[in-house]
């Protein structure tokens, strides 16, 4: 299960494992330990079996890959280690036919970000993909997932999450065989673990800042408050510009702009 910090991949793996346990299946959920940051790509794993799961290792060749993030869903790495004939469930607004990942596997898509934004009001896509998981794989019943969700999110939050699961269950399409059969030659590693300097964090963003230079009054607020130095200041024109590969999309600049010259736009997935 691939996602990014804050989207609830770890919680989703636990919900699946708990739901399977409710149905009498042996289950196990483990997150990959690293430097989990909000916004940073991370992976969590689930094992389901009829016999007791004794393995304690990470899953290296999964049967099913679930991708919680629309930008990670574009990267070949999410399907690279799948068993032949495996299944990938992507969070993307595209149809399964339009997915550009190559290999021998089945593809299913669900627009979980939109579902999450409309039912929860926040882009936490973990529960909004679980309904699709239940329907497409048939491994779990919807009721047991709902039961497991109430265990993790009691009260109103649980009700909202259940609404997201139900909607995703209804909207999920049947999986099709992948259209592209060959994997692209160029590959990007999705894991940016460890401390230090990263190359590119543009895939961390859900919202991208866009500057309207005509409205800008040159107050330097965006420049001075950017934690990642993603905003460059041009002293001659007194205008900012954005280094998009350093921007994590926190929205600080847009929030601090006194004249609203910066707008946060949703990334096209």
């Amino acid at each position, binding site marked *: 299960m691939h996602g990014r910090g804050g989207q609830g991949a770890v919680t989703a793996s636990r919900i699946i494992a708990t739901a399977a346990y409710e149905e009498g299946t042996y289950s196990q959920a483990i997150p990959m330990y690293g430097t989990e*940051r*909000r916004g940073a790509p991370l992976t969590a794993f689930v094992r389901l079996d009829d016999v007791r799961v004794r393995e304690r290792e990470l899953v290296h060749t999964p049967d099913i890959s679930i991708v919680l993030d629309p930008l990670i869903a574009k990267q070949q790495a999410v399907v690279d280690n799948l068993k032949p004939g495996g299944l990938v469930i992507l969070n993307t607004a595209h149809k399964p036919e339009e997915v550009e990942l190559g290999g021998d596997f089945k593809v299913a898509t669900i627009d979980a970000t939109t579902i999450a934004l409309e039912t929860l009001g926040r882009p936490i896509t973990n529960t909004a993909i679980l309904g699709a998981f239940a329907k497409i794989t048939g491994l779990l019943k919807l009721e047991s997932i709902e039961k497991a969700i109430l265990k993790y999110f009691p009260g109103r939050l649980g009700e909202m999450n259940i609404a997201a699961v139900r909607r995703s269950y209804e909207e999920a399409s049947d999986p099709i065989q992948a259209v592209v059969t060959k994997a692209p030659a160029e590959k990007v590693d999705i894991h940016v673990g460890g401390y230090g*300097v990263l190359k590119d964090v543009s895939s961390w963003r859900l919202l991208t800042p866009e500057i309207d230079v005509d409205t800008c009054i040159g107050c330097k607020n965006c420049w001075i408050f950017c934690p990642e*130095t993603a905003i460059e*200041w041009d002293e001659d024109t007194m205008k900012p510009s954005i280094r998009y590969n*350093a921007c*994590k999309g*926190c929205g600080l600049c847009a929030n601090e702009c006194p004249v609203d010259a910066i707008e946060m736009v949703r990334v096209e997935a």
Partner: protein
Amino acid sequence: MSERITRAQIPLSEMTITPGSACQGCGAALAARLAFKALGPNVIRHGIPCCPDSVTKTPRTGTVFEGGGALLTGTSRGLKAIGRDDVKAVAFYGDGGTYDIGFQGLSAAAERNEDVLVLTKDNEAYMNTGNQRSSATPKYSMTSTTPVGPKSRGKPRHKKNVPFIFAAHYVPYVATASVGFPEDLIAKVTYAKDLKGFRMIIIQAPCPVGWRYDPAKTIEVARSGVQTGLWPLYEIEDGQNFKLNYKPKELKPVSEYLSPQRRFRHMTEDETAEIQEDTTTKWDTLTRADELGRLII
């Protein structure tokens, strides 16, 4: 005491290499960026285990939590031995390394008046390991080790007043700063850089993940912390001379700082009133000390 600067005086050159591995909207990464921008290149940075904030172009060395003060002492004495007065030993520690685990080493270094500059990014809990309480955590704050439930209302005790504890070592310079006031922060770091002896600046660094607010509001939260009087900006020289740097005519109500943060969302009106009263009392003491220009310890 530091001189006021304007935004146009802030150097354009950056000392940080980005993008780093901090979370979105990280206050500590911003604190590192602003502080090292003011310090320039002739700095040896010291680190102890803490959140990964901005990586800087300066040389860096690190040790265990408890060794922070000792490592700094070694560097500063070594620099003195080889006659490099121009290079500064600078620590960039978290609140755990300053308030709790690293406290004894730093206290000893302060007592010996070692020639070091200690910068603390205070995000008010052990955020790197998942929001465990530290002695920097404010009262009623919900953390993973002080959860809210039928028998617990979050952290039961007040935040430790570390700036005053270090001021009581009669060191040359102790100050508080906030990422919400970058001019003030940079002025203080620039001033402290060229002083001799033990200098300490504690920087408020809001943490969107642990304090539980939208990452876009980091500066709003930092600023309201100062405007409500919960994070006063001041300088103390030689343990006696005192100056408040931010003096509004009237403080904003503390609820303005507490309500956007979901770590305080369980607080009742009585509890908020208690924090308000406590803040007002402390603020009165500070303004009186500011009028006198000195602390009466």
